[in-house]
């Protein structure tokens, strides 16, 4: 069995009373105070997450753009220098390898940020797809540490620590030369919470200092350290997908309602299957579900027709802290995906009535 890994912030998590659990082979805090308090802090003020476990792969060379274009569903040719784009990598059968962020330095120099749970698999896939492209692909995940500072006060807090005008880093753009308290960082205005905020990448040696500086700078602004627990509740409320829940090797981006990030006028691995799916229509799709009876719908619970037949499954569900309702994302048969459709969720022995609703449970507060 593989040894659990620790990020460079492990001792810091213990210092802040982090409740450590295993996630994707890493020992990380589920929460420090409580999931709900940290969730609310991010929505109201700010929260800081250790996301050093994420993977980073550099793609450099003459054909970097062509190579990535072939690898991902989205059209990366439209990214301008210092832009970031969300995309997915698919298998030949249209199922998802992973979702990722594509950071473009220039059209011969990119940084891809991938999920911690998929680093080895993704990198092997990327190397396999190199073929004859003139490109170098390197896994630098172990050399990079990252924190995410998220919430309406994120910019105010981080601005105290740098001379770079953070308002110049607009939504889905990055600056690779931001000096945060003498430490060089890549800072992007990206995140996984539906709030304004930044993702800050730096070396392993710098990260503890950066964490402590940010905590100090934000102490009067309501900044709290935030763990994996609220990372999931926050992203769920704004319907951002989690690999292993809403997307995986057996779910296509179209079924996961991510068609916006699939540009079928570009060529990429898995495109043919997606074109066919679009032409023929999907057989199932990801929808929002609101429970009308008592109970909490959770990942893996069955979704049933009103007659009690299984029509799908809950991919993620919670009692939504910011919305105050018990809601879920579910992958269900196309016949039942219309808004307002009655369905049931099997919660242990009971069939709890529910209905199909918009996935926009909570309104995103991005700074655009």
């Amino acid at each position, binding site marked *: 069995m593989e040894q659990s890994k620790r990020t460079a912030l492990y001792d810091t998590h213990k210092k802040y009373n982090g409740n450590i659990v295993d996630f994707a082979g890493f020992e990380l805090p589920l929460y420090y105070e409580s999931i709900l308090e940290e969730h609310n802090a991010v929505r109201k003020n700010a929260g800081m997450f250790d996301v050093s476990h994420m993977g980073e792969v550099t793609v450099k060379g003459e054909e970097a753009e062509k190579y990535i274009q072939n690898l991902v569903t989205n059209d990366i040719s439209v990214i301008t220098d210092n832009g970031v784009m969300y995309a997915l990598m698919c298998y030949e059968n249209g199922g998802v390898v992973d979702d990722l962020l594509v950071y473009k330095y220039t059209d011969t120099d990119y940084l891809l940020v991938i999920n911690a749970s998929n680093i080895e698999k993704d990198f092997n896939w990327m190397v396999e797809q190199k073929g004859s492209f003139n490109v170098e692909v390197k896994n630098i995940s172990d050399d990079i540490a990252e924190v995410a500072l998220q919430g309406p006060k994120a910019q105010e807090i981080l601005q105290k620590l740098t001379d770079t005008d953070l308002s110049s880093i607009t939504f889905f753009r990055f600056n690779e030369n931001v000096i945060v308290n003498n430490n060089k960082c890549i800072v992007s205005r990206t995140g996984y919470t539906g709030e304004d905020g930044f993702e800050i990448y730096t070396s392993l040696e710098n990260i503890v200092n950066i964490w402590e500086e940010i905590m100090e700078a934000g102490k009067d602004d309501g900044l709290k350290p935030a763990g994996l627990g609220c990372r999931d509740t926050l992203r769920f409320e704004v319907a951002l997908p989690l690999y292993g829940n809403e997307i995986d090797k057996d779910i296509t981006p179209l079924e996961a309602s991510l068609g916006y990030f699939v540009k079928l006028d570009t060529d990429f691995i898995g495109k043919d299957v997606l074109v066919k799916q679009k032409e023929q229509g999907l057989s199932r799709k990801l929808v929002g579900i609101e429970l009308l009876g008592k109970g*909490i719908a959770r990942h893996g619970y069955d979704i049933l027709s009103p007659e009690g037949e299984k029509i799908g499954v809950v991919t993620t569900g919670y*009692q939504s802290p910011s919305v105050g309702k018990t809601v879920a994302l579910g992958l269900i048969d196309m016949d039942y995906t219309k808004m307002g459709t009655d369905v049931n969720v099997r919660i242990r022995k009971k069939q709890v009535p529910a209905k199909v609703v918009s996935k926009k449970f909570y309104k995103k507060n991005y700074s655009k």
Partner: protein
Amino acid sequence: MKIMEDYYYTKNHEWVKVDGDTAIVGVSDYAQHAMGQIVYVELPEIDDEFAKEDAFSVVESVKAASDIYMPVGGTVVEINEDLEDEPESINADPYSNFICKIELADKTEIDNLMNAEEYNDFCKE
């Protein structure tokens, strides 16, 4: 960890307080702390019959649903309906915010449970 002197405890961190032929059942301070903030409690129904170690309730935190098991067998005579509106009250006081009261099937089953001192030692392991 708070432990009540005259209660009895199980390895799954349920507690029982005996009152003649009836008993009151809940989850311990250790349990509520481990679960984190409780957001939902699925209560049994009055007249439900359970044997010792039957799952009779579910206590849900943000992250997960935990089955709660009967420390001793009996029939439900009262349920704590306050938990429907304020499930988090278990976190605030797990001993006065019980889950249900039962009529005991077999009082001798209490003998197999841990007393306060034994439970205290058990929690320390």
